[in-house]
Protein backbone atom coordinates (compact mmCIF):
# COMPACT_ATOMS: atom_id res chain seq x y z
CA UNK A 1 0.00 0.00 0.00
CA UNK A 2 1.52 3.24 -1.18
CA UNK A 3 1.66 6.00 1.35
CA UNK A 4 -0.12 9.35 1.38
CA UNK A 5 2.79 11.26 -0.12
CA UNK A 6 2.69 9.02 -3.16
CA UNK A 7 -0.95 9.80 -3.85
CA UNK A 8 -0.41 13.48 -3.06
CA UNK A 9 2.40 13.68 -5.59
CA UNK A 10 0.27 11.98 -8.25
CA UNK A 11 -2.56 14.45 -7.67
CA UNK A 12 -0.27 17.46 -8.02
CA UNK A 13 1.45 15.96 -11.04
CA UNK A 14 -1.94 15.70 -12.71
CA UNK A 15 -2.76 19.28 -11.68
CA UNK A 16 0.53 20.44 -13.20
CA UNK A 17 -0.16 18.56 -16.42
CA UNK A 18 -3.69 19.86 -16.77
CA UNK A 19 -2.58 23.43 -16.05
CA UNK A 20 0.22 23.25 -18.60
CA UNK A 21 -2.09 21.93 -21.28
CA UNK A 22 -4.79 24.47 -20.51
CA UNK A 23 -2.33 27.42 -20.43
CA UNK A 24 -0.92 26.37 -23.77
CA UNK A 25 -4.28 27.24 -25.34
CA UNK A 26 -3.96 30.89 -24.33
CA UNK A 27 -3.18 33.39 -27.11
CA UNK A 28 0.47 33.92 -28.00
CA UNK A 29 1.74 37.24 -29.37
CA UNK A 30 3.84 36.47 -32.44
CA UNK A 31 7.25 38.11 -32.42
CA UNK A 32 6.92 39.40 -28.87
CA UNK A 33 8.84 38.18 -25.82
CA UNK A 34 7.35 35.14 -24.12
CA UNK A 35 6.76 36.90 -20.81
CA UNK A 36 4.06 39.09 -22.37
CA UNK A 37 1.83 36.12 -23.12
CA UNK A 38 -0.91 35.27 -20.61
CA UNK A 39 0.14 31.64 -20.62
CA UNK A 40 3.78 32.30 -19.70
CA UNK A 41 3.43 32.46 -15.93
CA UNK A 42 0.93 29.58 -15.48
CA UNK A 43 3.10 27.39 -17.68
CA UNK A 44 6.18 28.31 -15.64
CA UNK A 45 4.34 27.44 -12.42
CA UNK A 46 3.06 24.16 -13.82
CA UNK A 47 6.59 23.17 -14.79
CA UNK A 48 7.90 23.94 -11.30
CA UNK A 49 4.95 22.09 -9.75
CA UNK A 50 5.65 19.13 -12.00
CA UNK A 51 9.30 18.99 -10.95
CA UNK A 52 8.41 19.27 -7.26
CA UNK A 53 5.72 16.57 -7.60
CA UNK A 54 8.21 14.22 -9.20
CA UNK A 55 10.64 14.96 -6.35
CA UNK A 56 7.90 14.12 -3.84
CA UNK A 57 7.04 10.96 -5.77
CA UNK A 58 10.66 9.84 -5.66
CA UNK A 59 11.02 10.51 -1.92
CA UNK A 60 7.72 8.76 -1.22
CA UNK A 61 8.94 5.67 -3.03
CA UNK A 62 12.28 5.78 -1.23
CA UNK A 63 10.72 6.10 2.23
CA UNK A 64 7.56 4.06 2.13
CA UNK A 65 6.02 2.87 5.33
CA UNK A 66 5.27 5.94 7.42
CA UNK A 67 1.74 5.74 6.14
CA UNK A 68 -0.59 4.70 8.92
CA UNK A 69 0.14 7.48 11.38
CA UNK A 70 -3.24 8.99 10.56
CA UNK A 71 -4.72 11.47 13.03
CA UNK A 72 -7.52 9.11 13.97
CA UNK A 73 -9.85 10.74 11.51
CA UNK A 74 -12.85 8.99 9.98
CA UNK A 75 -11.86 5.79 11.73
CA UNK A 76 -15.33 4.70 12.73
CA UNK A 77 -18.70 4.49 11.03
CA UNK A 78 -20.00 7.10 13.43
CA UNK A 79 -17.26 9.55 12.44
CA UNK A 80 -17.91 8.99 8.74
CA UNK A 81 -21.63 9.46 9.32
CA UNK A 82 -21.22 12.70 11.27
CA UNK A 83 -18.74 14.03 8.72
CA UNK A 84 -21.09 13.25 5.85
CA UNK A 85 -24.07 14.79 7.62
CA UNK A 86 -22.09 17.97 8.31
CA UNK A 87 -20.95 18.20 4.73
CA UNK A 88 -24.49 17.61 3.50
CA UNK A 89 -25.89 20.33 5.76
CA UNK A 90 -23.14 22.74 4.66
CA UNK A 91 -23.93 22.16 0.98
CA UNK A 92 -27.65 22.42 1.65
CA UNK A 93 -27.33 25.70 3.55
CA UNK A 94 -26.87 28.12 0.62
CA UNK A 95 -29.89 26.62 -1.12
CA UNK A 96 -31.99 26.87 2.01
CA UNK A 97 -30.75 30.43 2.52
CA UNK A 98 -32.06 31.46 -0.85
CA UNK A 99 -35.29 29.53 -0.51
CA UNK A 100 -36.30 30.13 3.09
CA UNK A 101 -34.33 33.17 4.28
CA UNK A 102 -31.64 33.53 6.90
CA UNK A 103 -33.34 32.77 10.20
CA UNK A 104 -35.15 29.64 9.05
CA UNK A 105 -32.21 28.12 7.19
CA UNK A 106 -29.85 28.83 10.08
CA UNK A 107 -32.26 27.27 12.54
CA UNK A 108 -32.58 24.12 10.44
CA UNK A 109 -28.81 23.93 10.04
CA UNK A 110 -28.06 24.52 13.73
CA UNK A 111 -30.81 22.26 15.01
CA UNK A 112 -29.90 19.26 12.92
CA UNK A 113 -26.18 19.67 13.47
CA UNK A 114 -26.56 19.95 17.26
CA UNK A 115 -28.88 16.96 17.17
CA UNK A 116 -26.41 14.76 15.35
CA UNK A 117 -23.37 15.97 17.26
CA UNK A 118 -24.88 15.45 20.69
CA UNK A 119 -23.96 12.22 22.42
CA UNK A 120 -26.75 9.68 22.66
CA UNK A 121 -26.95 9.90 26.44
CA UNK A 122 -27.46 13.64 26.34
CA UNK A 123 -29.80 13.79 23.35
CA UNK A 124 -32.76 15.46 25.02
CA UNK A 125 -35.09 17.43 22.82
CA UNK A 126 -36.05 19.84 25.60
CA UNK A 127 -32.41 20.98 25.68
CA UNK A 128 -31.54 20.75 22.01
CA UNK A 129 -34.60 22.52 20.63
CA UNK A 130 -34.41 25.62 22.84
CA UNK A 131 -30.61 25.81 22.45
CA UNK A 132 -30.94 25.67 18.67
CA UNK A 133 -33.63 28.33 18.83
CA UNK A 134 -31.52 30.51 21.12
CA UNK A 135 -28.42 30.19 18.94
CA UNK A 136 -30.39 30.95 15.79
CA UNK A 137 -31.92 33.98 17.42
CA UNK A 138 -28.46 35.15 18.53
CA UNK A 139 -27.15 34.74 14.97
CA UNK A 140 -30.18 36.59 13.60
CA UNK A 141 -29.67 39.40 16.06
CA UNK A 142 -25.96 39.76 15.35
CA UNK A 143 -26.05 39.42 11.58
CA UNK A 144 -29.41 40.81 10.57
CA UNK A 145 -30.20 43.37 13.25
CA UNK A 146 -26.79 44.69 14.28
CA UNK A 147 -24.66 44.13 11.17
CA UNK A 148 -27.61 44.50 8.74
CA UNK A 149 -26.22 42.00 6.25
CA UNK A 150 -28.55 41.87 3.22
CA UNK A 151 -29.40 38.20 3.01
CA UNK A 152 -31.46 36.85 0.11
CA UNK A 153 -35.14 37.13 1.01
CA UNK A 154 -36.70 33.71 1.02
CA UNK A 155 -40.29 32.70 1.55
CA UNK A 156 -39.86 32.76 5.36
CA UNK A 157 -37.62 35.04 7.48
Amino acid sequence: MKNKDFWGSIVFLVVAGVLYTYSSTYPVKEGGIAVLNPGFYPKLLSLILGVLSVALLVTSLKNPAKSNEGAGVLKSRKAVFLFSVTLFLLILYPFLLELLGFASSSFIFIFFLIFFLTEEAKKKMFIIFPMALALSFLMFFIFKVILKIPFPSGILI
Partner: protein
Amino acid sequence: MSFDLYLAGLKYFSNPLMFLTSFFGVLVGIVFGALPGLTATMTIAVFIPFTFSLDPVVSFAFLLGLYTGAVYGGSISAILINIPGTPSAIATSLDGYPMCQQGRAGEAIGISTISSAIGGFFSVLVLSVAAPLIAGLALKFSAEEYVGITLIGLSVIAIISAGSTIKGLIGGVFGLILGTVGLDPITSFPRMIFGRAELIDGLDSIPIMIGVYGLAEMLTEIASLKHKTVVTQELNKVLPSLKDVKRLIPTMLRSSVIGTLIGAIPAAGGSIASLVAYGQEKKFSKRKELLGTGIIEGVAAPEAANNASTGGALIPMMTLGIPGDPMTAVLMGGLIIQGLRPGPILFQQQMPFVSSIFISLLLSVFFMLIIGLAGARVFSRLIMVKKNFLIPAVLVFCLVGSYAINNSLFDVGVLIVAGFFGFLLKQLKFSVAPIILGMILGPLFESNLRRSLMLSQGDWSTFVTRPISLFFLIVVVLVLVGPLVLDRVRKK
Protein backbone atom coordinates in the same frame (compact mmCIF):
# COMPACT_ATOMS: atom_id res chain seq x y z
CA MET B 1 12.06 61.10 11.00
CA SER B 2 10.06 63.29 13.31
CA PHE B 3 7.93 62.50 16.26
CA ASP B 4 4.96 63.96 14.38
CA LEU B 5 4.86 60.70 12.52
CA TYR B 6 3.65 58.88 15.58
CA LEU B 7 1.30 61.58 16.76
CA ALA B 8 -0.46 61.74 13.41
CA GLY B 9 -2.67 58.81 14.36
CA LEU B 10 -3.66 60.18 17.75
CA LYS B 11 -6.45 62.26 16.25
CA TYR B 12 -8.49 59.11 15.64
CA PHE B 13 -8.47 58.31 19.33
CA SER B 14 -10.53 61.32 20.28
CA ASN B 15 -13.38 59.07 19.15
CA PRO B 16 -14.43 56.79 22.04
CA LEU B 17 -15.53 54.21 19.47
CA MET B 18 -11.86 53.38 18.91
CA PHE B 19 -11.40 52.37 22.56
CA LEU B 20 -14.63 50.41 22.57
CA THR B 21 -13.74 48.59 19.36
CA SER B 22 -10.24 47.75 20.51
CA PHE B 23 -11.54 46.50 23.87
CA PHE B 24 -14.22 44.42 22.24
CA GLY B 25 -11.75 43.03 19.73
CA VAL B 26 -9.37 41.93 22.48
CA LEU B 27 -12.22 40.38 24.46
CA VAL B 28 -13.57 38.42 21.50
CA GLY B 29 -10.01 37.48 20.52
CA ILE B 30 -9.25 36.08 23.98
CA VAL B 31 -12.50 34.10 24.04
CA PHE B 32 -11.96 32.61 20.60
CA GLY B 33 -8.27 32.03 21.21
CA ALA B 34 -9.02 30.24 24.46
CA LEU B 35 -11.55 27.85 22.93
CA PRO B 36 -9.71 24.77 21.71
CA GLY B 37 -10.43 24.09 18.07
CA LEU B 38 -10.70 27.77 17.19
CA THR B 39 -7.32 29.15 16.17
CA ALA B 40 -6.18 32.78 16.16
CA THR B 41 -5.88 32.75 12.37
CA MET B 42 -9.40 31.43 12.06
CA THR B 43 -10.71 34.07 14.45
CA ILE B 44 -9.30 36.88 12.37
CA ALA B 45 -10.43 35.26 9.08
CA VAL B 46 -13.98 34.75 10.31
CA PHE B 47 -14.37 38.33 11.54
CA ILE B 48 -12.77 40.19 8.63
CA PRO B 49 -15.92 40.23 6.47
CA PHE B 50 -17.75 41.95 9.31
CA THR B 51 -15.26 44.79 9.46
CA PHE B 52 -15.81 45.67 5.85
CA SER B 53 -18.49 48.26 6.57
CA LEU B 54 -16.40 49.95 9.26
CA ASP B 55 -13.97 52.81 8.75
CA PRO B 56 -10.47 51.37 8.03
CA VAL B 57 -8.95 52.78 11.23
CA VAL B 58 -11.75 51.39 13.39
CA SER B 59 -11.78 48.08 11.54
CA PHE B 60 -8.09 47.62 12.04
CA ALA B 61 -8.35 48.54 15.73
CA PHE B 62 -10.82 45.66 16.04
CA LEU B 63 -8.71 43.21 14.03
CA LEU B 64 -5.54 44.06 15.94
CA GLY B 65 -7.49 43.55 19.15
CA LEU B 66 -8.53 40.13 17.87
CA TYR B 67 -4.95 39.36 16.89
CA THR B 68 -3.46 40.32 20.25
CA GLY B 69 -6.26 38.71 22.25
CA ALA B 70 -6.34 35.45 20.36
CA VAL B 71 -2.58 34.85 20.48
CA TYR B 72 -2.69 35.37 24.24
CA GLY B 73 -5.99 33.50 24.69
CA GLY B 74 -4.52 30.24 23.44
CA SER B 75 -2.48 30.04 26.63
CA ILE B 76 -5.59 29.76 28.81
CA SER B 77 -6.67 26.37 27.54
CA ALA B 78 -3.04 25.29 27.15
CA ILE B 79 -2.62 25.84 30.89
CA LEU B 80 -6.00 24.60 32.07
CA ILE B 81 -6.62 21.55 29.91
CA ASN B 82 -3.30 20.92 28.14
CA ILE B 83 -4.89 21.68 24.79
CA PRO B 84 -3.38 24.82 23.23
CA GLY B 85 -6.16 27.12 22.05
CA THR B 86 -3.91 28.29 19.24
CA PRO B 87 -0.71 26.83 17.74
CA SER B 88 1.37 29.63 19.29
CA ALA B 89 0.48 28.29 22.73
CA ILE B 90 1.92 24.81 22.24
CA ALA B 91 5.06 25.56 24.26
CA THR B 92 2.99 27.19 27.03
CA SER B 93 1.41 23.88 28.01
CA LEU B 94 4.83 22.35 28.69
CA ASP B 95 5.09 24.11 32.03
CA GLY B 96 1.64 25.67 32.19
CA TYR B 97 -0.26 22.41 32.50
CA PRO B 98 2.04 20.95 35.18
CA MET B 99 1.51 24.19 37.12
CA CYS B 100 -2.22 23.67 36.76
CA GLN B 101 -1.92 20.11 37.99
CA GLN B 102 -0.15 21.47 41.07
CA GLY B 103 -3.11 23.75 41.75
CA ARG B 104 -1.24 26.82 40.48
CA ALA B 105 -3.32 27.48 37.35
CA GLY B 106 -4.19 31.01 38.42
CA GLU B 107 -0.54 31.87 38.90
CA ALA B 108 0.27 30.44 35.46
CA ILE B 109 -2.42 32.51 33.80
CA GLY B 110 -1.22 35.62 35.62
CA ILE B 111 2.36 35.06 34.46
CA SER B 112 1.14 34.33 30.96
CA THR B 113 -0.85 37.58 30.89
CA ILE B 114 2.00 39.75 32.12
CA SER B 115 4.58 38.11 29.86
CA SER B 116 2.30 38.45 26.85
CA ALA B 117 1.87 42.13 27.67
CA ILE B 118 5.62 42.72 27.98
CA GLY B 119 6.23 40.87 24.71
CA GLY B 120 3.48 42.81 23.02
CA PHE B 121 4.70 46.22 24.24
CA PHE B 122 8.26 45.46 23.20
CA SER B 123 7.25 44.45 19.71
CA VAL B 124 5.08 47.55 19.23
CA LEU B 125 8.09 49.71 20.12
CA VAL B 126 10.27 47.86 17.63
CA LEU B 127 7.54 47.98 15.00
CA SER B 128 7.03 51.71 15.32
CA VAL B 129 10.76 52.41 15.03
CA ALA B 130 11.73 49.81 12.45
CA ALA B 131 8.76 49.93 10.12
CA PRO B 132 9.20 53.50 8.86
CA LEU B 133 12.93 52.82 8.36
CA ILE B 134 12.32 49.64 6.40
CA ALA B 135 9.56 51.29 4.40
CA GLY B 136 12.05 53.99 3.48
CA LEU B 137 14.51 51.33 2.31
CA ALA B 138 11.81 49.48 0.43
CA LEU B 139 11.04 52.55 -1.65
CA LYS B 140 14.36 51.85 -3.35
CA PHE B 141 13.27 48.31 -4.18
CA SER B 142 12.26 47.59 -7.70
CA ALA B 143 10.49 44.61 -9.20
CA GLU B 144 13.46 42.23 -8.95
CA GLU B 145 13.80 42.81 -5.20
CA TYR B 146 10.12 42.09 -4.63
CA VAL B 147 10.50 38.81 -6.49
CA GLY B 148 13.36 37.93 -4.17
CA ILE B 149 11.49 38.83 -0.99
CA THR B 150 8.42 36.90 -2.08
CA LEU B 151 10.59 33.86 -2.70
CA ILE B 152 12.10 34.25 0.77
CA GLY B 153 8.62 34.26 2.29
CA LEU B 154 7.57 31.19 0.35
CA SER B 155 10.73 29.26 1.15
CA VAL B 156 10.59 30.12 4.86
CA ILE B 157 7.04 28.92 5.11
CA ALA B 158 7.90 25.80 3.16
CA ILE B 159 10.66 25.00 5.63
CA ILE B 160 8.73 25.71 8.79
CA SER B 161 5.39 24.18 7.90
CA ALA B 162 4.45 20.74 9.10
CA GLY B 163 5.31 18.11 6.53
CA SER B 164 8.42 18.05 4.39
CA THR B 165 9.95 21.07 2.66
CA ILE B 166 9.01 19.67 -0.74
CA LYS B 167 5.37 19.53 0.31
CA GLY B 168 5.65 23.08 1.60
CA LEU B 169 7.05 24.23 -1.74
CA ILE B 170 4.34 22.33 -3.62
CA GLY B 171 1.79 24.11 -1.43
CA GLY B 172 3.38 27.47 -2.14
CA VAL B 173 3.42 26.91 -5.91
CA PHE B 174 -0.15 25.62 -5.83
CA GLY B 175 -1.10 28.80 -3.99
CA LEU B 176 0.63 30.85 -6.69
CA ILE B 177 -1.40 28.91 -9.27
CA LEU B 178 -4.62 29.74 -7.44
CA GLY B 179 -3.48 33.35 -7.61
CA THR B 180 -3.53 33.21 -11.44
CA VAL B 181 -7.31 32.81 -11.58
CA GLY B 182 -8.84 35.94 -13.03
CA LEU B 183 -7.62 38.56 -15.46
CA ASP B 184 -3.96 38.49 -16.44
CA PRO B 185 -2.54 41.68 -14.87
CA ILE B 186 -0.62 42.59 -18.02
CA THR B 187 -2.85 41.56 -20.92
CA SER B 188 -6.20 41.34 -19.07
CA PHE B 189 -6.79 37.97 -20.66
CA PRO B 190 -9.20 35.95 -18.52
CA ARG B 191 -7.49 32.89 -17.03
CA MET B 192 -9.29 29.91 -15.49
CA ILE B 193 -12.55 31.74 -14.89
CA PHE B 194 -14.63 28.99 -16.51
CA GLY B 195 -17.18 31.51 -17.69
CA ARG B 196 -17.99 32.75 -14.18
CA ALA B 197 -18.17 36.52 -13.80
CA GLU B 198 -17.44 36.15 -10.08
CA LEU B 199 -13.94 34.92 -10.92
CA ILE B 200 -12.90 37.85 -13.10
CA ASP B 201 -11.24 39.53 -10.14
CA GLY B 202 -9.70 36.26 -9.07
CA LEU B 203 -10.49 33.91 -6.24
CA ASP B 204 -11.42 35.83 -3.12
CA SER B 205 -8.87 34.88 -0.50
CA ILE B 206 -11.13 35.49 2.49
CA PRO B 207 -13.65 32.64 1.94
CA ILE B 208 -10.73 30.38 1.14
CA MET B 209 -8.96 31.33 4.34
CA ILE B 210 -12.11 30.90 6.40
CA GLY B 211 -12.56 27.57 4.64
CA VAL B 212 -9.12 26.12 5.24
CA TYR B 213 -8.63 27.56 8.72
CA GLY B 214 -12.20 27.51 9.98
CA LEU B 215 -14.29 24.94 8.19
CA ALA B 216 -11.48 22.42 7.79
CA GLU B 217 -10.73 22.59 11.53
CA MET B 218 -14.36 22.01 12.44
CA LEU B 219 -14.64 19.13 9.96
CA THR B 220 -11.51 17.59 11.47
CA GLU B 221 -12.96 17.89 14.98
CA ILE B 222 -16.14 16.19 13.82
CA ALA B 223 -14.36 13.50 11.85
CA SER B 224 -12.13 12.63 14.80
CA LEU B 225 -15.09 12.61 17.19
CA LYS B 226 -13.35 15.22 19.31
CA HIS B 227 -16.41 16.83 20.72
CA LYS B 228 -16.57 15.76 24.30
CA THR B 229 -16.56 18.30 27.10
CA VAL B 230 -13.62 19.00 29.37
CA VAL B 231 -13.53 19.87 33.05
CA THR B 232 -11.34 22.59 34.55
CA GLN B 233 -10.36 23.65 38.04
CA GLU B 234 -11.10 26.69 40.16
CA LEU B 235 -8.54 29.49 39.94
CA ASN B 236 -6.93 30.95 43.05
CA LYS B 237 -4.52 33.87 43.02
CA VAL B 238 -3.89 35.23 39.57
CA LEU B 239 -1.69 38.27 40.14
CA PRO B 240 1.94 37.17 40.49
CA SER B 241 4.18 38.60 43.22
CA LEU B 242 6.64 41.41 42.46
CA LYS B 243 9.47 39.07 43.36
CA ASP B 244 8.36 36.60 40.72
CA VAL B 245 8.00 39.31 38.10
CA LYS B 246 11.51 40.61 38.90
CA ARG B 247 12.89 37.11 38.53
CA LEU B 248 11.28 36.83 35.13
CA ILE B 249 12.65 40.04 33.65
CA PRO B 250 15.64 38.45 31.85
CA THR B 251 13.40 35.68 30.49
CA MET B 252 10.72 38.07 29.29
CA LEU B 253 13.20 40.43 27.66
CA ARG B 254 15.13 37.66 25.95
CA SER B 255 11.93 36.03 24.70
CA SER B 256 10.53 39.35 23.53
CA VAL B 257 13.59 39.94 21.36
CA ILE B 258 13.40 36.40 19.98
CA GLY B 259 9.68 36.73 19.31
CA THR B 260 9.97 40.07 17.55
CA LEU B 261 12.85 38.89 15.35
CA ILE B 262 11.19 35.65 14.37
CA GLY B 263 7.90 37.42 13.77
CA ALA B 264 9.71 39.84 11.48
CA ILE B 265 11.00 37.02 9.27
CA PRO B 266 8.45 36.66 6.49
CA ALA B 267 6.20 33.69 7.14
CA ALA B 268 7.65 32.64 10.54
CA GLY B 269 5.35 33.53 13.43
CA GLY B 270 4.06 32.88 16.93
CA SER B 271 4.32 29.11 17.08
CA ILE B 272 7.97 29.08 15.95
CA ALA B 273 8.77 32.05 18.18
CA SER B 274 7.34 30.41 21.28
CA LEU B 275 9.12 27.12 20.66
CA VAL B 276 12.47 28.82 20.01
CA ALA B 277 12.07 31.00 23.10
CA TYR B 278 11.31 27.93 25.21
CA GLY B 279 14.34 26.22 23.72
CA GLN B 280 16.53 29.21 24.57
CA GLU B 281 15.13 29.20 28.09
CA LYS B 282 16.38 25.64 28.37
CA LYS B 283 19.86 26.93 27.57
CA PHE B 284 20.04 30.15 29.52
CA SER B 285 17.67 29.93 32.44
CA LYS B 286 19.07 29.73 35.96
CA ARG B 287 16.53 27.00 36.71
CA LYS B 288 16.76 25.19 33.39
CA GLU B 289 16.80 21.73 34.95
CA LEU B 290 13.32 22.39 36.34
CA LEU B 291 11.77 23.30 32.99
CA GLY B 292 8.87 21.01 32.16
CA THR B 293 8.00 20.43 35.81
CA GLY B 294 5.91 23.58 36.14
CA ILE B 295 8.04 26.66 36.65
CA ILE B 296 7.05 30.23 35.83
CA GLU B 297 9.94 30.71 33.40
CA GLY B 298 8.46 27.93 31.27
CA VAL B 299 5.26 29.92 30.84
CA ALA B 300 6.81 33.39 30.65
CA ALA B 301 9.23 32.58 27.80
CA PRO B 302 6.80 31.25 25.17
CA GLU B 303 4.10 33.73 26.06
CA ALA B 304 6.37 36.77 25.84
CA ALA B 305 7.67 35.43 22.52
CA ASN B 306 4.34 34.70 20.87
CA ASN B 307 2.88 38.11 21.64
CA ALA B 308 6.17 39.75 20.67
CA SER B 309 5.88 38.07 17.29
CA THR B 310 2.61 39.93 16.63
CA GLY B 311 4.34 43.30 16.30
CA GLY B 312 7.30 41.71 14.54
CA ALA B 313 5.11 40.02 11.95
CA LEU B 314 3.47 43.33 11.14
CA ILE B 315 6.83 44.77 10.05
CA PRO B 316 7.22 42.91 6.73
CA MET B 317 3.46 42.95 6.19
CA MET B 318 3.13 46.70 6.46
CA THR B 319 6.42 47.74 4.88
CA LEU B 320 6.66 45.22 2.05
CA GLY B 321 3.24 43.65 1.71
CA ILE B 322 4.77 40.29 2.64
CA PRO B 323 2.98 38.67 5.60
CA GLY B 324 5.15 37.94 8.62
CA ASP B 325 3.04 34.89 9.51
CA PRO B 326 -0.28 33.24 8.55
CA MET B 327 -2.20 35.59 10.87
CA THR B 328 -0.81 38.72 9.27
CA ALA B 329 -1.54 37.13 5.90
CA VAL B 330 -5.18 37.13 6.92
CA LEU B 331 -4.86 40.66 8.39
CA MET B 332 -3.57 41.78 5.01
CA GLY B 333 -6.89 40.60 3.63
CA GLY B 334 -8.48 43.03 6.09
CA LEU B 335 -6.39 45.88 4.68
CA ILE B 336 -7.02 44.98 1.06
CA ILE B 337 -10.76 44.70 1.62
CA GLN B 338 -10.63 48.36 2.69
CA GLY B 339 -8.84 49.28 -0.53
CA LEU B 340 -5.46 49.78 1.17
CA ARG B 341 -2.39 48.13 -0.27
CA PRO B 342 0.36 47.45 2.30
CA GLY B 343 3.86 48.48 1.32
CA PRO B 344 6.09 51.56 1.33
CA ILE B 345 3.42 53.62 -0.43
CA LEU B 346 1.16 53.11 2.60
CA PHE B 347 3.79 54.86 4.72
CA GLN B 348 4.10 57.68 2.23
CA GLN B 349 0.44 58.34 1.65
CA GLN B 350 -1.37 57.06 4.73
CA MET B 351 0.92 57.86 7.63
CA PRO B 352 -1.93 58.77 10.03
CA PHE B 353 -3.47 55.35 9.37
CA VAL B 354 -0.11 53.66 9.91
CA SER B 355 0.46 55.47 13.18
CA SER B 356 -3.08 54.62 14.27
CA ILE B 357 -2.08 50.97 13.81
CA PHE B 358 0.86 51.42 16.20
CA ILE B 359 -1.40 53.09 18.75
CA SER B 360 -4.19 50.51 18.33
CA LEU B 361 -1.71 47.70 18.90
CA LEU B 362 -0.44 49.40 22.05
CA LEU B 363 -4.00 49.86 23.22
CA SER B 364 -4.88 46.22 22.58
CA VAL B 365 -1.87 45.03 24.59
CA PHE B 366 -3.03 47.24 27.44
CA PHE B 367 -6.60 45.90 27.25
CA MET B 368 -5.27 42.33 27.05
CA LEU B 369 -3.38 42.89 30.30
CA ILE B 370 -6.47 44.21 32.08
CA ILE B 371 -8.94 41.67 30.69
CA GLY B 372 -6.55 38.78 31.18
CA LEU B 373 -5.90 39.53 34.83
CA ALA B 374 -9.47 40.51 35.68
CA GLY B 375 -11.28 37.90 33.63
CA ALA B 376 -9.18 34.79 34.16
CA ARG B 377 -11.84 33.08 36.25
CA VAL B 378 -14.53 33.74 33.68
CA PHE B 379 -12.42 32.37 30.85
CA SER B 380 -11.69 29.21 32.76
CA ARG B 381 -15.44 28.54 32.80
CA LEU B 382 -15.84 29.53 29.19
CA ILE B 383 -13.65 26.82 27.76
CA MET B 384 -16.12 24.27 29.05
CA VAL B 385 -18.63 25.31 26.38
CA LYS B 386 -20.01 22.17 24.84
CA LYS B 387 -18.61 21.43 21.43
CA ASN B 388 -21.92 20.17 20.06
CA PHE B 389 -23.21 23.76 20.44
CA LEU B 390 -19.98 25.55 19.63
CA ILE B 391 -19.27 23.81 16.33
CA PRO B 392 -22.62 24.62 14.69
CA ALA B 393 -22.33 28.24 15.88
CA VAL B 394 -18.82 28.57 14.45
CA LEU B 395 -19.92 26.98 11.16
CA VAL B 396 -22.73 29.50 10.80
CA PHE B 397 -20.19 32.27 11.43
CA CYS B 398 -18.03 30.85 8.65
CA LEU B 399 -20.97 30.56 6.24
CA VAL B 400 -22.34 34.01 6.95
CA GLY B 401 -18.91 35.60 6.95
CA SER B 402 -18.17 34.25 3.48
CA TYR B 403 -21.53 35.41 2.21
CA ALA B 404 -21.17 38.87 3.70
CA ILE B 405 -18.03 39.86 1.80
CA ASN B 406 -19.72 40.32 -1.56
CA ASN B 407 -23.30 39.28 -0.68
CA SER B 408 -22.55 36.31 -2.86
CA LEU B 409 -23.63 32.70 -2.50
CA PHE B 410 -20.77 31.86 -4.87
CA ASP B 411 -18.35 32.77 -2.10
CA VAL B 412 -20.21 30.40 0.22
CA GLY B 413 -19.59 27.70 -2.39
CA VAL B 414 -15.90 28.64 -2.48
CA LEU B 415 -15.84 28.38 1.31
CA ILE B 416 -17.27 24.88 1.31
CA VAL B 417 -14.97 23.64 -1.43
CA ALA B 418 -11.95 25.21 0.29
CA GLY B 419 -13.00 23.71 3.61
CA PHE B 420 -13.36 20.26 2.14
CA PHE B 421 -10.02 20.41 0.33
CA GLY B 422 -8.40 21.95 3.40
CA PHE B 423 -9.60 18.92 5.36
CA LEU B 424 -8.27 16.53 2.71
CA LEU B 425 -4.90 18.27 2.59
CA LYS B 426 -4.61 17.99 6.37
CA GLN B 427 -5.14 14.25 6.05
CA LEU B 428 -2.48 14.06 3.35
CA LYS B 429 -0.20 15.94 5.77
CA PHE B 430 0.06 19.00 3.55
CA SER B 431 0.17 22.26 5.46
CA VAL B 432 -2.26 24.89 4.15
CA ALA B 433 -0.18 27.90 5.22
CA PRO B 434 2.09 27.79 2.13
CA ILE B 435 -0.97 27.60 -0.11
CA ILE B 436 -2.56 30.64 1.49
CA LEU B 437 0.69 32.58 1.40
CA GLY B 438 1.19 31.64 -2.25
CA MET B 439 -2.31 32.82 -3.08
CA ILE B 440 -1.85 36.13 -1.33
CA LEU B 441 1.61 36.81 -2.70
CA GLY B 442 0.77 35.45 -6.17
CA PRO B 443 -0.38 38.66 -7.83
CA LEU B 444 2.55 40.62 -6.31
CA PHE B 445 4.98 37.95 -7.40
CA GLU B 446 3.64 37.61 -10.92
CA SER B 447 3.44 41.29 -11.73
CA ASN B 448 6.96 41.92 -10.43
CA LEU B 449 8.42 38.86 -12.13
CA ARG B 450 6.91 39.71 -15.48
CA ARG B 451 7.72 43.39 -15.15
CA SER B 452 11.39 42.60 -14.46
CA LEU B 453 11.54 40.29 -17.45
CA MET B 454 9.75 42.75 -19.69
CA LEU B 455 12.20 45.52 -18.80
CA SER B 456 15.14 43.20 -19.32
CA GLN B 457 13.67 41.95 -22.58
CA GLY B 458 13.33 38.41 -21.30
CA ASP B 459 16.82 38.26 -19.77
CA TRP B 460 16.67 36.24 -16.52
CA SER B 461 20.12 37.43 -15.42
CA THR B 462 18.53 40.66 -14.25
CA PHE B 463 17.74 38.88 -10.98
CA VAL B 464 21.37 38.17 -10.24
CA THR B 465 22.99 41.31 -11.59
CA ARG B 466 21.17 43.57 -9.15
CA PRO B 467 23.00 43.27 -5.79
CA ILE B 468 20.01 43.38 -3.41
CA SER B 469 18.05 40.96 -5.56
CA LEU B 470 21.04 38.62 -5.69
CA PHE B 471 21.33 38.84 -1.91
CA PHE B 472 17.69 37.85 -1.48
CA LEU B 473 18.11 34.91 -3.85
CA ILE B 474 21.15 33.72 -1.89
CA VAL B 475 19.03 33.90 1.28
CA VAL B 476 16.40 31.74 -0.45
CA VAL B 477 18.98 29.13 -1.33
CA LEU B 478 20.41 29.19 2.20
CA VAL B 479 16.96 28.81 3.72
CA LEU B 480 16.10 25.84 1.54
CA VAL B 481 19.44 24.11 1.41
CA GLY B 482 20.79 25.10 4.84
CA PRO B 483 18.84 22.55 6.91
CA LEU B 484 19.85 19.73 4.54
CA VAL B 485 23.52 20.66 4.80
CA LEU B 486 23.27 20.98 8.59
CA ASP B 487 21.71 17.53 8.73
CA ARG B 488 24.57 16.02 6.71
CA VAL B 489 27.15 17.76 8.89
CA ARG B 490 25.44 16.54 12.05
CA LYS B 491 25.32 12.97 10.80
CA LYS B 492 29.07 13.02 10.30
